[in-house]
């Protein structure tokens, strides 16, 4: 067990975990009632940061995916570049961005989130675009669509299922990733998770914030799933 024990260099927790039992429950309505404002504003910040990150990532990823789709030799480099960005650990990326951009605004976190969302979005957009059947593409060309018109009126609508898969995956992982922003004090609900840990292991604060993060991810996922269903009625008709 020597590997599992603390080495001499490791920091020792400053305080023992608080006692289990009535004093420090995992869940408390009283806590939620007393801190509704804090929880609400953290939730809003979290949701807002997620939304901005996903929208920015969408704006960057869509042209890149179309570029990779139109010019096949670019597919490899674009995917490889976003793959390398995805490999960079979130904490390290934040450590590289924060000193350059500053920690007074949430831009460092936002840029990190956008870079992470890129790979998932580009890959799924590209999958969606390449899944458009060749006959459909040829028929559209035969009907006189220009390259751009075909993209806008035929290929992108048919790629919507792939686009929404990407958006859902990116949104869910972005919600979880925002918490890492706690490193520079811009972590939304992650701030509360960490705050609870540092505030003498306040379990109710930790668990409530965690539940809110997961719930936010699931709700946003559900909204996007519903939106995707509404926008692609033909996928339902085919299966029924």
């Amino acid at each position, binding site marked *: 067990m020597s*590997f*599992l*024990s*603390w*080495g*001499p*260099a*490791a*920091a*020792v*927790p400053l305080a023992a*975990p608080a006692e289990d039992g009535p004093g420090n429950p995992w869940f408390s309505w009283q806590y939620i009632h007393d801190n509704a404002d804090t929880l609400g504003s953290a939730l809003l910040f979290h949701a807002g940061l997620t939304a901005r990150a996903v929208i920015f990532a969408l704006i960057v990823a869509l042209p890149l995916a179309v570029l990779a789709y139109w010019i096949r030799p670019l597919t490899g480099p674009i995917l490889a570049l976003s793959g*390398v960005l*995805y*490999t*960079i*650990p*979130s*904490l*390290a*990326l*934040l*450590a*590289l961005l*924060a*000193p*350059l951009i*500053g*920690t007074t605004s949430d831009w460092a976190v936002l840029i990190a989130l956008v870079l*992470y969302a890129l790979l*998932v979005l580009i*890959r*799924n957009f590209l999958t969606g675009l390449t899944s458009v059947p060749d006959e459909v593409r040829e028929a559209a060309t035969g009907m006189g669509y220009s390259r751009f018109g075909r993209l806008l009126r035929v290929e992108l609508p048919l790629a919507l299922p792939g686009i929404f898969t990407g958006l859902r*995956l*990116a949104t*869910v*992982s972005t*919600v*979880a*990733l925002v*918490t*890492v922003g*706690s*490193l*520079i004090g811009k*972590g939304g609900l*992650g701030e509360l*998770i*960490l705050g*609870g*840990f540092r505030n003498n292991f306040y379990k109710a604060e*930790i*668990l409530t*914030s*965690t539940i809110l*993060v*997961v719930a936010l*991810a*699931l709700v946003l*996922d559900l909204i996007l799933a519903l939106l995707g269903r509404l926008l692609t009625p033909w996928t339902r008709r085919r299966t029924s």
Partner: protein
Amino acid sequence: MNYFSQALTWLNDPLNWTNPGGLFDRLIEHLQITAWAVLIGCIIGWPIGIWLGHRGKGGAAVITVANLTLAVPTLALLTILPLTPLGFGRPPVIVALAVFAVPPLLANAYTGLRSIDPETIEAAKGMGLSGGQVLRRVELPLAVPYLAAGLRTAAVQVVATAALATFVNGGGLGEIIAAGFGLGINVGGGQIVAGGIVVVALALIVEGLLALVQRLVTPAPLRAVKRRRPVRATSVG
């Protein structure tokens, strides 16, 4: 680029490497945490994935589990587990990271076994191999590239997320970055960036090494068919 040159100065000071709690100590901690987490992830993820893939059931469950873990922040598990009977120290950090290593390992093992041509399995059965023999002699060897791909994804992800252990005093290279922020950006900026550079380098090295391993264990005929890694998204933080 001011911080970048400060970072190089910081990295160039041997004492920053050899001091107690310096880069070498933290690197070893980081690698130990990673190795244990990936090992536990393999012990749990592979048998379940292989069994489900062999039976051909539970695909929906595998995807659901993988997507659900995407929604759980690593930070949450890192802070919750020390307050459970696991106690403080390294075990809760390792368990938290192992939880996130399981989905890619499991999903890739499952995909690997499911993507084998059914005719191959039919032929093996026709030759009189029992279920266990089919699994050991046909399915597992053919699934090795996928198992390696899962290992690569999981290991890179654990190396990356192990940096977050610093939030709960869990050790690892994240401590260097956190200590830099503790000094304030004006003083510790170089150290923050230096820590970031080391973590990025470690992640890229692990990725590269395991990509090589993946290539080596992939039989030449399978290598010709270029595959993309089948799992689309993993948790990064």
